[in-house]
């Protein structure tokens, strides 16, 4: 790490509390990867997760004053310290590279999305983590988070829907690898909006996801990471429109591909039937229907000001821990909140 850092001794109370928190955070959302090398540094700067060595760095005052279960004069410092632990655990809990994957994205945006996923996960699980760890209820405001958070939060919101809701998507993204985050977002769009026409998993479905990824990598994507609400809203709207258009294009193309030759009268008749509508709320399980939620088509219009994205939430969502490709049950609007 470029800034200076002092190794925290493994027999110190700070190190023991950090490792206790680290293990608890992994229990909240287990992943198959643990890249932390068990070295903890108290840093002069912001610290981070060292992708090369696997070391974790956290700003020294947060470690010194924040990692205590006792009520303190600075609960906001405690909150920030716990949030940093969750953030580092999330980054250490996923691989980065995805060798040989055709849909791996290697641009700067993929790096930003990696940071953003850690921040979004931190916000999502903060309340549970705090209580699980035996800390008092602490103030943590998601709007305090960074530009990478704003951009990621918006993209997650736009890709969420009835089959893969926001929380389920955050869970999938937290599994990594980082280079596949855009592909995971695209798969959520496929499951939520194109499930009826999408090919089964394989090269063709990958190609569909690549089209969607290209749309998400809109030239203005970077602006989503800027926290000006006006700029963020504009760009989110642009990407939302582009994604909607791409989803429609893929759907229509698929229906044209289904169109038979002129010799096949029966199939011709079928092909000229009205296009199959996107999944509607009535196709959702009973629990979702009970919430009187609107149709799925609203999802990709869910653009929010980047810096305030947590305040705007989709009205419908469902999904639970199931492997990719399987519809799931249970409504769940967007996550991300503040607490005091």
């Amino acid at each position, binding site marked *: 790490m470029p800034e200076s850092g002092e190794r925290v001794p493994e027999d110190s109370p700070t190190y023991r509390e950090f490792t206790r928190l680290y293990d608890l955070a992994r*229990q909240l959302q287990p992943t198959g990867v643990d890249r932390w090398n068990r070295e903890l540094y108290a840093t002069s700067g912001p610290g981070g997760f060292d992708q090369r060595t696997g070391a974790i760095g956290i700003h020294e005052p947060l470690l010194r004053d924040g990692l205590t279960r006792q009520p303190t004069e600075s609960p906001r410092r405690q909150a920030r310290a716990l949030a940093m632990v969750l953030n580092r655990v999330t980054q250490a809990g996923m691989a980065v590279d995805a060798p040989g994957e055709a849909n*791996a994205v290697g641009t700067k945006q993929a790096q930003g999305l990696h940071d953003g996923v850690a921040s979004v996960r931190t916000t*999502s699980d903060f309340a549970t983590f705090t*209580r699980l760890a035996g800390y008092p209820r602490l103030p943590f405001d998601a*709007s305090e988070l960074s530009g990478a958070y704003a951009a990621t939060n918006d993209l997650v919101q736009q890709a969420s829907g009835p089959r893969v809701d926001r929380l389920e998507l955050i869970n999938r993204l937290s599994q990594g690898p980082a280079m596949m985050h855009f592909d995971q977002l695209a798969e959520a769009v496929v499951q939520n909006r194109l499930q009826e026409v999408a090919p089964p998993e394989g090269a063709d479905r990958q190609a569909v996801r690549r089209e969607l990824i290209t749309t998400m990598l809109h030239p203005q994507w970077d602006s989503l990471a*800027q926290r000006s609400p006006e700029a963020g809203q504009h760009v989110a709207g642009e990407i939302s429109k582009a994604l909607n258009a791409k989803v429609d294009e893929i759907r229509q193309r698929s229906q044209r591909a289904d169109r038979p030759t002129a010799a096949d009268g029966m199939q011709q008749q079928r092909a000229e039937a009205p296009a199959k509508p996107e999944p509607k709320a009535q196709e959702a399980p009973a629990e979702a229907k009970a*919430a009187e939620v609107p149709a799925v088509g609203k999802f990709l219009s869910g653009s929010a000001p980047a810096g305030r994205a947590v305040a705007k939430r989709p009205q419908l969502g469902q999904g639970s821990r199931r492997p990719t490709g399987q519809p799931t049950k249970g409504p769940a*609007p967007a996550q991300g909140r503040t607490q005091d």
Partner: protein
Amino acid sequence: MPLDIPAFNMAFNRAYDRMHHSGQPGDLSAEQDKLRALVPADASEHDRTWTAQLIGDLAEPPPPPLERSELYREAVRIHIEVYPPKGTDEEMIAMLADGRRRIWELADRATADEEDDIRAMTDDLQSMEDWIRDPPFPLTDVPFPNA
């Protein structure tokens, strides 16, 4: 039977959203009952304690946004200016480092309440700077280097 912590976490987060972010009035006691049903009768005392606290927290709505100081808003403006960075690798590194230094200086002058929030803005600046200096995978201009 031990508590299924990931399932409880997901259920709580969904219940919280239904209560406080759905735009519709929620049924607090019904939501709390559903969450209690996820805690096995023979769960450990620790698990029964923290889940009970969290289920109690479900009643609390999120607070209004914090009032921010001019120092905080200036830090936001700097962040917008430098992130995401533009130019060559060297230019991006310089931009990120400059933004990080300026925001850090603002944090040094901030109140204890805001200091950590302002410093936290530099987290993704530092992270991207580290990646550009020594990328764990080569950053590319084309989106699909393996395709």
